[in-house]
C-alpha cells in the first residue's frame, strides 16, 4: 500500500511539474540579443533641422562621479556610424563651436551595476555632457515626451541622444532631447564592433521620421 501511494505521489509530482512549465524569465530574455529602443518627440518636424554636430568622445558612465571620456578606434567607429546615418538622411555635419548646428548629438556607454531601473536622464549628473558643452551653460536637458524606462543597465548600454539646439531659446533655454536611442546588451554574450554598429543603423532605420528632407510619396521608408 505504501509503495502504491509513493508511486502515485511521484506520478502526481511529475504531472504537477510538467504542468507548471512557463516562459523564460527576464534574465534569460535579457541575455538573448541586443535590443534597440528608440523614441522621438511625436510632432517634431525633423525637416526643420539641416545641420548637426556630435561629441568628439564617448562618455563611459560606470558609477556616480565615476565617468570618463573615451576616444579610441571603437568609440570613433561608433561616432562615425552615427555621422554616416545622419548624413544619409540629409543632415550636414558642422563644427560644434563655429557651425551653429541645429542638432547636437551626445553618445554614452553605460556600465553600471548599482542602478537596476531608471528612466533616461539619470546619468545627466554622472559626468555626462553638460549643456555648456553645446554653448548653453544656463540650460538643462529636457525630454518633451515620457522617456522609455530601461532596467538592468548592467547588461551594458549605448545611449545616443539628439538635442534640439535650433529652438533652445524658444524652449526657454531647455535643450529638448528630440530623439533617444538605447542599444542594450553590450555585456551579454560576445559581440563584435560591427554588431554594435549594425544596431546603431537599426536605431536610425526604425525612426524614419529622422530626415532633413521629405521624400516623395512611397519612398519614406527607403534608406
Amino acid at each position, binding site marked *: 500500500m505504501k509503495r502504491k501511494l509513493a508511486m502515485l505521489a511521484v506520478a502526481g509530482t511529475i504531472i504537477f511539474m510538467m504542468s507548471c512549465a512557463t516562459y523564460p524569465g527576464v534574465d534569460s*530574455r535579457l541575455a538573448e540579443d541586443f535590443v534597440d529602443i528608440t523614441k522621438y518627440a511625436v510632432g517634431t518636424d525633423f525637416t526643420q533641422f539641416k545641420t548637426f554636430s556630435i561629441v568628439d568622445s564617448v562618455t563611459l558612465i560606470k558609477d556616480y562621479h565615476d565617468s570618463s571620456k573615451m576616444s579610441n578606434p571603437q568609440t570613433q567607429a561608433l561616432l562615425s556610424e552615427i555621422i554616416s546615418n545622419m548624413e544619409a538622411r540629409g543632415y550636414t555635419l558642422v563644427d560644434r563651436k563655429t557651425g551653429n548646428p541645429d542638432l547636437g548629438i551626445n553618445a554614452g556607454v553605460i556600465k553600471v551595476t548599482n542602478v537596476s531601473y531608471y528612466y533616461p536622464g539619470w546619468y545627466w549628473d554622472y559626468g555626462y555632457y553638460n549643456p555648456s558643452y553645446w554653448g548653453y551653460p544656463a540650460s538643462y536637458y529636457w525630454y518633451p515626451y515620457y522617456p522609455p524606462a530601461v532596467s538592468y543597465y548592467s547588461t551594458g548600454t549605448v545611449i545616443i541622444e539628439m538635442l534640439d539646439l535650433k529652438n533652445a531659446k524658444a524652449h526657454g533655454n531647455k535643450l529638448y532631447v528630440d530623439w533617444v536611442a538605447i542599444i542594450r546588451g553590450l555585456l551579454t554574450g560576445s559581440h563584435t564592433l560591427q554588431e554594435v554598429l549594425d544596431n546603431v543603423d537599426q536605431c536610425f532605420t*526604425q525612426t524614419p521620421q529622422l530626415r532633413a528632407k521629405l521624400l516623395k510619396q512611397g519612398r519614406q521608408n527607403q534608406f
Partner: protein
Amino acid sequence: MKMIFFIIISVLLLAPGIHAQEKSPEGFSPSSLYTLSWSISVPLGNLSSFINNVSPAGGNFTGRYFLRNGLAVGFEFGWNNYYEKYPRATYYGDDGLAITAVQYSYAFVIPWKAGVYYYFKPSAIADPFVGLSLGGDYMEEHILVQEYDIYNTQWGFTMSPEVGVLIKFGRFSHWGATASTQYWFNTNSFNFAGYNSYANMQGLNFIVGLTYMLR
C-alpha cells in the same frame, strides 16, 4: 459545434434508459471522484493567432458527485500556460517608441467551472463519459520584449464539452486514470496598445490524470 451540443444533450436525455438496459458488471459504482490531471492544450481560433504553440504546461483538478444512474455534477479548476517566441523584429508604439528585439507572447488561462457529466458504465473497469461545463475564465495575455511586459487581464464566460474515459486500476480499487478531450472557448478579449486585438479564445485540451474514487 452544434453537433457536439446535440450529441451531449442527447446522451444526457437518453442516459437513464441506456443504463437500465445494461447488466451491471461486478465492481463498485463510485459516489464521487476527484482527479488531478496534466492538460496539454492546442490553441485554436483567435488564441492560435496570438500563440500557435501547443502548450504542455497545464493541469486541472476536478471533483464529480454522482446523483443517480451515472449522472454526475461537479466542479473544475484548471490552468494552462501558452507561450511562443517570435524572432527579432521591430515593434512600434503610438507614442514615438520603437523596439527591435525578440518577442514572447504568453497567455495564462484559469478556468473555474461547474458541469454536468454522464458516465456510461459507472461500475465497469473502463467507464466512458461525456460532459459539459460552464463557468468563468480568468485570463492573462502578455507580450514580453526584454524586461517590458505589456499585458491585459480579464474574466470571461467559458464553456467546454468533454468526452473521456475513466479506467479503474482494479474492480474494487479506489484509484484510476482519466483520459479526456475537452474543447473550450471563452468570451475574453484583449487589445494591445490599439494594434493587436484578440477575442473569443478557443482551445482543445488533451487531459490525462489520476483519479481517486469514493464508494
